[in-house]
């Protein structure tokens, strides 16, 4: 990129920053207030925590597509992973704190379970629980207690997209009743919990997979 173009980018960025700051400082408070709507419909959502209600009920369709994005990224990443033969031998060197890992991982798994269970009525839920499970796998890997993944077998592939397929199955069943993702109020809590359990497992595997399919092979202890 030549100097003139770089200067133009810097200048444009400065101008954009100025305009954006001026625009948001001058912005009046909007007329529509979604929080009141969320609060009004919370009792019919099947959960009591507003964020979970938005994430899995009011805007559950976003979440369905988002899980697809994650699964898709993993498929795209797997298409890039073959060059194991291009990689060099597993790197030697000291593993990172295996003792800490042995203590930390059971704690992480327990907290994932807690986050999943409590997501219905306080902060937490499938995303955080899945992320914590994935973090546990990463810690195990860094401590040389868990190998990097190579090509996934069929059962692992099923685990990776199982949460998405379960979510789709629930969506399809509800759509067959007339409306996409319309949870009957008396079943909403149960169905949302079912979806969240599937998502926790799959999100954990997917997020861990993003790391473990990509990571350096490390020799196990």
């Amino acid at each position, binding site marked *: 990129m030549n100097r003139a173009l770089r200067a133009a980018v810097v200048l444009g960025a400065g101008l954009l920053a100025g305009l954006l700051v001026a625009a*948001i400082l001058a912005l009046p408070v909007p007329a529509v207030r979604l*929080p009141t709507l969320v609060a009004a419909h919370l009792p019919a959502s099947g959960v009591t925590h507003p964020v979970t209600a938005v994430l899995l009920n*009011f*805007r559950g369709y976003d979440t369905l597509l988002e899980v697809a994005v994650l699964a898709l990224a993993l498929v795209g990443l797997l298409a890039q992973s073959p060059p194991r033969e291009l990689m060099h031998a597993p790197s030697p060197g000291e593993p990172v704190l295996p003792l800490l890992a042995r203590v930390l991982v059971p704690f992480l798994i327990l907290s994932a379970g807690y986050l999943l269970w409590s997501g219905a009525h306080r902060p937490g839920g499938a995303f955080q629980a899945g992320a914590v499970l994935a973090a546990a796998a990463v810690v195990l890997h860094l401590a040389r207690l868990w190998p990097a993944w190579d090509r996934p077998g069929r059962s692992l592939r099923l685990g990776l997209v199982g949460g998405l397929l379960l979510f789709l199955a629930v969506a399809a069943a509800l759509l067959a009743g007339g409306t996409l993702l319309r949870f009957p109020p008396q079943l909403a809590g149960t169905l949302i919990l079912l979806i969240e359990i599937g998502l926790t497992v799959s999100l954990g595997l997917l997020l861990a997979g*993003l790391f473990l399919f990509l990571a350096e092979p490390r020799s196990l202890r």
Partner: protein
Amino acid sequence: MSSGLVYAVVGVLLFVLGAAGMLLLPHLLRKILAFNLLGSGAFLTLVGLAQRDGSVDPVPHAMVLTGIVVAVAATALALALLRRLHALSGRTQLADESADE
């Protein structure tokens, strides 16, 4: 000035910083880092602006959770491509545009 407004302003500044970084920095890993800054800036603006009157709005919270997962998915894919490119050609930058054909 409320907390929300402070973070909304910080958010747009982060966005502009990240966008400029994506355009100006040649190393692909820097571009990926810059993208993450840009994304965080947009998330911060979304929540901060919605809560500039001091109230709490769960709708943007759910949107940002979605956005964070999308961002990590994109980052992982970008890193996979970068590592593949590096393994095949030793490059960590994109070739100049004029060299494509």
